[in-house]
């Protein structure tokens, strides 16, 4: 439905309409997903925040994978640098 080669008036109208209806939901779902991902990150970095985690040894291997998302999170939160003393990403 978003095929750019579809140049007909009806095609463009269809795209506009589906955008009109979908955009608010897309935003909500994207936010819900981001919250879910932030929560997941909290689990992985739990120990660093002083929350006991039974599986620190195993979450350790997830930390490098989450490094980039962690960076995005703290910039999104308006923090220029990582707020965790022992975990710096930039």
């Amino acid at each position, binding site marked *: 439905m978003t095929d750019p080669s579809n140049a007909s008036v009806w095609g463009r109208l269809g795209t506009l309409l589906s955008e009109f209806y979908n955009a608010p939901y897309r935003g909500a779902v994207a936010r819900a997903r981001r919250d879910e991902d932030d929560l997941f990150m909290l689990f992985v970095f739990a120990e660093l925040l002083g929350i006991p985690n039974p599986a620190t040894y*195993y979450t350790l291997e997830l930390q490098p994978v989450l490094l980039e998302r962690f960076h995005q999170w703290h910039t999104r939160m308006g923090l220029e640098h990582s707020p965790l003393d022992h975990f710096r990403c930039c």
Partner: protein
Amino acid sequence: MTISGVVRDLLDRQILFIGGKGGVGKTTIAASLAISAADLGYTCLLVSTDPAHSLGDIFGIEIGDSETTVSENLTALEIDPERTATAHIVTVKDNMKRLVHPRLYSEVDRQLELAAHAPGTMEAALLERVAELVCESGSKYDLLIFDTAPSGHTVRLLSLPEIMSSWTDGLLKHRAQSGRFAAMLKTFGNAGQASDELSHLDSVADHAPDSPEDRIQDLLSARRRKFIITRERLLDAKTTSFLLVLNPDHLSILETEKVITSLLSFDIKIAALVINRALTSSISGSGEFINSRRTQDSEYLDRIKSVFGSFPRVVVPLQPRDVYGFDSLRDIGKKLL
């Protein structure tokens, strides 16, 4: 019911755990059993999970943290959780360093050094090794015998696969939820008109094969698989059997009762009890001291019979001298089988 042959039958399992209170003779029983099994033609790996290893001492050879041949058919291993943890942390460090700016390397080092000394790290590293051995059981060796650390430690070790698999299940559930949102985003179409702060999420939703999303999923799934297989094998009575060693004395009987109860709460049943160092009537000698000991031991054996009547039991008499070295271990092995 003191049945001869009950321990002999256990050699046909893939995994045997030898547990019990500290100092009752777990290592002696495990080593005797291992050497007897090896003599009968079973290829056998004897593993010590006790942080204070004494397998090497009992055989009179150097063993350490690698599979070492002790005699024909018999290999031994003393797990060193510290070394395992260090290796794991080095891998994480390397992965981390590939992703951060070089000026942060010292930070990465510092943070991960701390992780190496976090409570639970050694336990998790030990579980990791035990899980690996249990997952491979039946392929390289006919029989895997674990000489475990004193009771509480082992009960905890056996309960970990369950705790850890429910933990990974929890994390995977959150990944699945995130994945469902990503799929929904796709059906709404990615017109590139999402607000700036969310745009990176759209790009993640359409992730590449080697994306962090897949990497997280893979790491967690691999963990979960290991825990689940370990737990399944430990709980399968046809694969794994648990032997408890006790002495005819007050404290040892009480602790054995507690261990049996706590193992039952993890659905683990004891296959047999080995009553070690019993001053049986077959031991000659008289005098006030030895007669008093003998009376006491027979009282305790009666008590063991009434408390643990439903478990098969094997009695190993007190030996005139210390048990170590191949010959004396073989003697004990004969009494066990």
